[in-house]
């Protein structure tokens, strides 16, 4: 699996070390050490994935994340030295798909990147119905009354996973495994935040969700097709 990965981190030693790990996996790393230059570098290199440090000189990671999200749905994994709830949630809400807390295991990093770079969920080309939405797996599109709703690949994966088994309740752990590729207990806030982001885009009334409904104490399920 080849791909270009933009590593945005001001610590050059760590960036270089990450570069070594990425290269050994066959990926092509490109670097950027300043938050203010990150967007320019992103446009110039067109990476397949961004590894973004949360603490950056110039522009902080959350701002950079937001800026990239306005023009691209490219997978973003945040590198954070903090695991405080607020920081992690801030990062995820700014549009990051996943996060990894320093210090991390290189295998962990590689696994996270691999999950985000894998070809998208379904290539069967079938169209799924969820609520009043049509999920077009082949076209990688979500349509409401013929109009496309822009989703990031991760959000599309999440919606597609739920829609593929409309009667099944997915626990947060199941979603972590199927969408994020975690094979052990991980942070379920990841799921909560992304479900909320997804709802903000696809629900008519996000306060009263009908597409992705909560099953208290268990998890989430897709709403009935209408």
């Amino acid at each position, binding site marked *: 699996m080849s791909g270009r990965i933009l590593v945005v981190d001001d610590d050059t*030693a760590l960036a270089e070390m990450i570069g070594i790990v990425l290269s050994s996996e066959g990926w092509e790393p490109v670097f950027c050490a300043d938050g203010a230059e990150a967007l320019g570098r992103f446009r110039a290199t067109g990476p397949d994935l961004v590894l973004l440090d949360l603490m950056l000189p110039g522009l902080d990671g959350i701002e950079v994340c937001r800026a990239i999200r306005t023009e691209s749905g490219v997978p973003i994994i945040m590198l954070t*030295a903090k695991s405080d709830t607020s920081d992690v949630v801030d990062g995820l809400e700014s549009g990051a798909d996943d996060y990894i807390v320093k210090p991390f295991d290189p295998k962990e990093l590689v696994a996270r990147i691999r999950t985000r770079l894998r070809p998208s969920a379904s290539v069967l080309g079938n169209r799924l119905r969820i609520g009043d939405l049509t999920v077009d797996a082949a076209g990688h599109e979500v349509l409401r009354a013929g109009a496309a709703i822009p989703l990031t690949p991760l959000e599309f994966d999440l919606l597609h996973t739920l829609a593929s088994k409309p009667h099944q309740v997915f626990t947060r752990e199941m979603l972590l495994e199927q969408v994020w590729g975690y094979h052990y207990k991980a942070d379920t806030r990841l799921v909560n935040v992304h479900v909320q982001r997804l709802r903000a885009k696809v629900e008519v009334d996000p306060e009263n969700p009908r597409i992705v409904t909560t099953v208290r104490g268990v998890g989430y399920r897709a709403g009935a097709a209408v």
Partner: protein
Amino acid sequence: MTAEQARTPASLRAAVTARQARRAVFAPARLLRRSLRVRTVAITLVLATVAIFAVGTVVSYTIAQGLFGNRLEQVLAESARATSAAQNVAVGYATDSTSLQNARFAALDSVQTAARPYGLYWARSDSSAGAAQIGDVELPENVKNLVSTQLRRALEKDGLQHWQSVSIPVAEGQVKPGIVVANTIQFGDGTVELYLVYDVADVQGTLTVVQRSLLIGGAALLLLIAMVTTAVVTLVVAPLRQAAAVSERLAAGHLEERIPEHGEDVVATLARSFNRMAESLQRQITQLANLSKVQQRFVSDVSHELRTPLTTIRLASDVLFNARERYDAPTARSAELLKTQVERFETLLADLLEISRMDARAAEVAGEPTNLVDLVREGVDALGGLAEETGTTIRVHTPGGHAFVDVDNRRIARIVRNLLANALEHGEGRPVDVTVDSSERAVAVGVRDHGIGMSQQDAERVFDRFWRADPSRQRRIGGTGLGLAISLEDAQLHGGALEVWTSGSDGTNFVLTLPRRSGSTELDRPVPLRPVDAVPERAVEPRHQETRVEVGS
């Protein structure tokens, strides 16, 4: 409605009435106890009433004495004058019966002209036989009854002027005060006793007016005293009350509260010194808070700054570790050691950061519905490797705890993991019993090993940071020494408790108890701290004292 039913409301009503009555009785008492102002005014009024009553009584008595004395003098003088006038008239007459009759009338006339008494009584003296032919005279009727034998005897004895206070009946059941003055007159060849009755009701009238004035004056004075006391007490109490309110708010954490300072008096001094105290308190607390904030910030920053280079080291050690087959033996072993120690360092750093967050009260509980039984089973599964390594069987008992409870499952899972690791570490390979149970108010997890247990001193320190039961013992799992300290904090964050029971020879039992609803403070004990399979206390050898340490809320 049956009779039985009818009785209940009646007794209920009675109870309510009784309660109301009791409240009515105790309400003033409560007011007295609670209000300084009411108490002061009440005491002042009671004392003032006693004083005014005493003074009033004395004054009233003195005035009565004075008034009566004056009147008496006047009465005595009048009657003396009348008697001598009558005596003068009586002297000129012969002693025959008609003359004596005339003499008596003349004498009585002169008496009435001179003295104007309320009544008079002209009586023959028992000892004088000479004046027998003329009869007694009483004006008006029954005046005779007012003259006591005592008075007559006194008169008979010496013939001088005597007096006595009497009550003159005026109407049915009504009397007025009077004075009877007794004198003797030489009449003919005998002696006649002349009793003059004077009405002194006017004195009583004056006295009544005086007493009424005293009463009204006293009442007015009391009212005035009450008003003045209230005003004075209010004046003194108001600043005190303000001071009390301010210290209350200060105690509640509003450190910027101050008492307004007016004037130079003692209250102002109180306000000033109170404010000075509050200021120094505020300064010190702010200083401490800042210091603590700086300290927390520092720890957090240090941990954070350490993380980036640690990540680089971790990645590098991993790359070296993965390539260790290509090196010679010592270098390969070095790569292994580097990797394990970097991992240990990492765990220690994570624990340190966690405990510093807890110290800073920055730890947040993210409660979500959790099945404690599932959580415990997952924890047991996760430690399966260690259990196998130590040859320990973990038996899970779940009589309760299947319902969802709102807890931060990350923290509770961490506690369970810590307790299990601890039990496996010290369980000597004997089975470990894990019990999950619940009650109406609480859910609990007990982790019981049958190892060598601890001494009392050890049990008391088991939640201390970096404390180890036996420093010389080799540790199988590279714990940081912060596990139980963090677990205790985690339990307390949930409003729960983490307790330990240990018996020198009978192992150790840790019990985590959490409230079913967050915020509830009442905990019972779904899982007993003393395990049910514990050796009965008497059977335990005396030197192995049973210990129970309770920590937490």
